[in-house]
């Protein structure tokens, strides 16, 4: 009996000791930090925070590294050398928040770029607001600009630069259907296969009324869970219900390859046209063994790699390929590259205007709004503009959507290549229908 009691006491004392030491260390560190004098600024630090295990994340690091290399070769930002620091959010909100904190407080990042998962971004926005650091971000949720709209002073440091928000996909999808109609495909029934996730709700909010307007009937709307693979019965059902188009609205399901494979095997007279992250992937053709031929999709980020929208974009793709041996693996690369240059431009504008501290976050926000707005978009790898505060749809600081700005172009996999097929002015190929259709 006494043995057990003494062991318990021992454990308790040990634990209490840990607490005292930990609390003491914390207090001491805080005091020491407060006592340190701020150093004069001798470099600019850009932080990249994304899931590094996925190529959507690693491409941001690589693209930013290229941009920083170029910037440094031309003298840096306001004469100061630029350094990159990298954080890995591991697609986890807690990790993302901790890494953001580390990048800003320990690595002294002046600005951040990155992101991918909307859920992680939502959590990170809180820390970003607390630490008052500008974040030029990715992710597609309309929740993020809504936060800016709801509390501008707190969240104004957030800007979306990599792609348009998910709701705009609806506009692109409608244009895609219009394109099909003008090319002689009678579209009046569609069969929707969509992710079981909140992001699609934002798309459908805009898509459904527009479909009605255009007299397009949704014969069925199928929600699929992550990892779902039984597409054949769905394709057969779509055909039986008389749909001319199967419209995927997919990003997280992860099984776009199987959808393409099943569609190509069955060869039923139904088109496959919609949004699927899997189709965006440059390795899609190889992975599906060519089954994705004739797959029409809208391309996130405003760039179809075979038809770059600006000359800066074409050079970026060329230089990236030269440096890394292959073209950018995902559209997040354009966002990260543009983020570095846009930040540089904002800081330089601020300095030219005589601002006391051009690197101060509030100042940077002011100048980002000034130089990249609807009246004058900035042409980088794409034409960047941000919606102003007070936007009617609560898309404050979101990436502007439109032909003159950024939008998901309508693309198609044709004979091994990702081609841009609409709008006509930018197209580098004509739409091709599968031989078994009609």
């Amino acid at each position, binding site marked *: 009996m006494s043995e057990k009691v003494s062991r318990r006491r021992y454990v308790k004392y040990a634990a209490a000791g840990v607490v005292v030491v930990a609390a003491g260390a914390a207090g001491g560190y805080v005091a020491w930090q407060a006592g340190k004098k701020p150093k004069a600024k001798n470099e600019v630090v850009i932080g990249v925070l994304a899931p590094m295990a996925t190529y959507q994340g690693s491409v941001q690091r690589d693209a930013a590294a290229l941009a920083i290399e170029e910037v440094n070769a031309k003298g840096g930002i306001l004469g100061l050398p630029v350094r990159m620091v990298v954080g890995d959010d591991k697609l986890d909100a807690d990790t993302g928040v901790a890494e953001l904190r580390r990048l800003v407080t320990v690595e002294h990042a002046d600005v951040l770029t990155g992101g991918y998962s909307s859920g992680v971004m939502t959590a990170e926005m809180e820390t970003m607001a607390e630490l008052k650091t500008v974040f030029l971000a990715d992710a597609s949720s309309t929740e993020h600009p809504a936060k800016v709209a709801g509390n501008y002073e707190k969240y104004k440091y957030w800007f979306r630069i990599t792609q348009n928000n998910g709701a705009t996909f609806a506009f692109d999808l409608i244009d895609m259907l219009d394109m099909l109609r003008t090319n002689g495909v009678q579209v009046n029934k569609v069969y929707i296969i969509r992710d079981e996730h909140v992001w699609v709700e934002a798309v459908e909010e805009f898509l459904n009324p527009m479909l009605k307007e255009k007299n397009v009937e949704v014969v069925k709307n199928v929600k699929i869970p992550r990892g779902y*693979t*039984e597409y054949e019965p769905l394709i057969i059902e779509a055909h039986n219900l008389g749909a001319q188009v199967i419209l995927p609205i997919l990003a997280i399901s992860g099984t776009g390859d199987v959808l393409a494979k099943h569609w190509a*095997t069955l060869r039923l007279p139904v088109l496959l046209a919609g949004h699927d992250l899997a189709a965006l992937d440059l390795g899609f053709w190889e992975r599906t063994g060519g089954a994705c031929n004739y797959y029409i999709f809208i391309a996130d980020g405003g760039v179809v790699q075979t038809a770059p929208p600006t000359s800066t974009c074409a050079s970026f793709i060329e230089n990236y390929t030269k440096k890394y041996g292959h073209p950018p693996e995902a559209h997040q690369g354009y966002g990260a590259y543009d983020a570095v240059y846009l930040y540089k431009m904002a800081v330089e504008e601020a300095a030219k205007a005589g601002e006391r501290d051009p690197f101060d976050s509030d100042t940077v926000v002011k100048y980002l709004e000034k130089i990249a707005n609807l009246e004058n978009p900035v042409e980088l790898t794409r034409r960047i503009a941000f919606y102003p505060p007070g936007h009617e749809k609560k898309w404050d600081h979101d990436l502007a959507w439109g032909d003159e700005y950024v939008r998901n172009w309508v693309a198609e996999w044709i004979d091994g290549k990702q081609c841009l097929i609409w709008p006509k002015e930018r197209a580098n190929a004509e739409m091709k229908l599968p031989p078994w259709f009609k």
Partner: protein
Amino acid sequence: MEMLELLMRILVYGATLSGIYSLIAAGFTLIFGVSRIMNFSHGAFFVLGAYLGIAIINGVGLNPYLSTAISILMVGLLAAIVYKGIMSPVRTQEVMVIIVTLAFALILEQLILLIFGEHGISYPSMVKGVISIGGVPIPSMRLFVLAIALTALILLWILIGKTRLGREITAASQDVEAATLLGLDVDKLFLTTVFISSILAALGGALYAQVYAANPFLVLKSLIFAFAIVILGGLGSVKGSVISSFIVGYILTAVIVLYGARWSELTALLIIIAILILKPTGLFGVKEL
């Protein structure tokens, strides 16, 4: 006509999934029935069959049939090594077996994630074309896969029922001590069982990647469905697990076709739990635990 078409769709499409799952379930229950080992790495071997096969096709350039054969043999060998290395030493502590094999499965899952990424991979089609049965278009590949799965099961049945090795395995599964007294090398029999079962699982994986796509998360997902099927069929009963594979496969397909994709897995799991409440030893419960 509508009903018939619907029924045909469920019947034929459900059969593929059932056939593939029966390969995993039969192997899992066989290992347990014979050696009391709960092999939580079984799902990993399933997935490896697919990944190794594709790696060989892409890396060495062999044709799909040969690559599959080589890959399942490699998986069998790996399983044998795993048995010798980590399953056998802790065989007497059943909790440890679960923990050790589960940890191994997760290592494999992480390795696959790191080397191949999280996107699925699929086999190049070995059989092309679509035929029509009862007005329902069916890719020939599905029938091919089903045929192979059934052939494998029949071979297994012949092995266990008609060969000397099969009889020895059955003897060891019924009474380990008596079998040892009779001079049977029980450890070797267990090893052989693990080898055979893992080959079956790997074959299942390769077939799965033909029709669908293999991804790292299947390591756990296929395992959990194997559990559900095996519990339903009764632990230790190969016949039971084959039959319940078809039951579960059909429930899944029927729900997808009739109600909606999102409900399929949840419904299947709930039905299994419900059946277990009514019949705690499964449909064909054989082993007393």
